């Protein structure tokens, strides 16, 4: 039985086309993965403080990063708290993070939570607000924008509930 076979030139051409196709697909998906569409936008300390003092309601600012396990662990608690407390302004400040990873985590965890999403690519905003080098850190402000409490480290449910009650009064 005659079996059609590819000649040497045809084989090399086929391999070349396949390689180009794979590279094109890889570049295409790479470009899609690194897109910053929907990524949190950078904010300055002054801009953030203006927002907190003018929003007319108490605020919670959480500095986080997608590479930080305690931040990821407390994120669902913050998301559910934001949904349950629409009279509190929640600000998530993505700090020292890769924008693509941050965008993916935001889509997974905070998609339907009423939260403002900002980026602090160098960590300077978090530092200026009173946070240290470690993450996560959460700052609680009353309606006037006065800092009530800085909580360093992971938040538990009773602590978050307590400080939400404090800043609402």
């Amino acid at each position: 039985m005659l079996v059609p076979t590819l000649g040497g030139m045809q084989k090399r051409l086929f391999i070349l086309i396949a390689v180009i196709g794979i590279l094109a697909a890889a570049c295409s998906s790479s470009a899609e993965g690194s897109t910053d569409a929907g990524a949190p936008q950078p904010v300055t300390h002054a801009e953030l403080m203006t927002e907190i003092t003018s929003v007319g309601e108490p605020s919670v600012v959480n500095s986080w990063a997608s590479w930080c396990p305690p931040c990821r662990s407390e994120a669902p608690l913050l998301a559910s708290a934001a949904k349950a407390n629409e009279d509190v302004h929640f600000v998530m400040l993505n700090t020292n993070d890769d924008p693509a990873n941050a965008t993916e985590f935001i889509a997974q965890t905070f998609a339907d939570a009423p939260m403002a999403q900002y980026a602090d690519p160098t960590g300077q905003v978090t530092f200026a607000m009173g946070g240290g080098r470690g993450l996560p850190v959460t700052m609680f402000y009353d309606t006037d924008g006065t800092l009530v409490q800085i909580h360093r480290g992971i938040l538990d449910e009773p602590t978050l509930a307590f400080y939400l009650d404090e800043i609402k009064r």
Partner: protein
Amino acid sequence: MEFTLLAAAAVGVGGFWSMLRWEARRGNAAGCALDLWDVGLTAGAIGLLGGRLIAMAQVGINPLADPAQIILIRSGVSTAGASITALLVFTFLARRSLLEASDAIGPSVLAGLAGWHAGTVITGSWLGTVSSLPWAQTAPGSEITRHPVEIYTALAYLAAAIGIAVWKQRGRPALGVPAGLSLAAAGGVRLITEPLRISLTGGPKWLYAAAVIAGLLLATWRHFVVRTT
């Protein structure tokens, strides 16, 4: 911050150990061959793990995909999941003499709960709703006075533990009655203090109510039905 949680847990374990020792010197667990310290700690540790895994599942974190998060106890433990897991583990470990072991360990578990709630002073989450009573306390940096709800809870658990332990020795109750009363007290104290607590979820009141009903049913059945037959 995790060290404060460990310290609070250590106070709880210390309360459990102290009551076990105190009762052991008065002939506790005479009909029970189990090492209650081992059984209690094993059930507690596995219960904690079960509660953490259930809490992770409830918020959509896959423990297999992100196993490091299992140890981040502070970010959430399901009270209902931990309690039910611990009870199941205890029931399995003490299956050969369940009522004897339950009677023997009941007051110690209440003392452990008293220690845990007292230990929340270390974690900083011991204040509840706003109060103007003379003993109301304020959080650091705050002027709002609040009920020290976890101290109320700790004192109520301690009173129940001592009361049941003393009555167990002097009153000679029917087998299973101290266990039933301990279970009812464990749920009842939380049910009564819950309105003074600040919570995002409201706490598993159904679990506390179920513990009260199950405990009272067990105690009533053992006291009025089994003893008289």
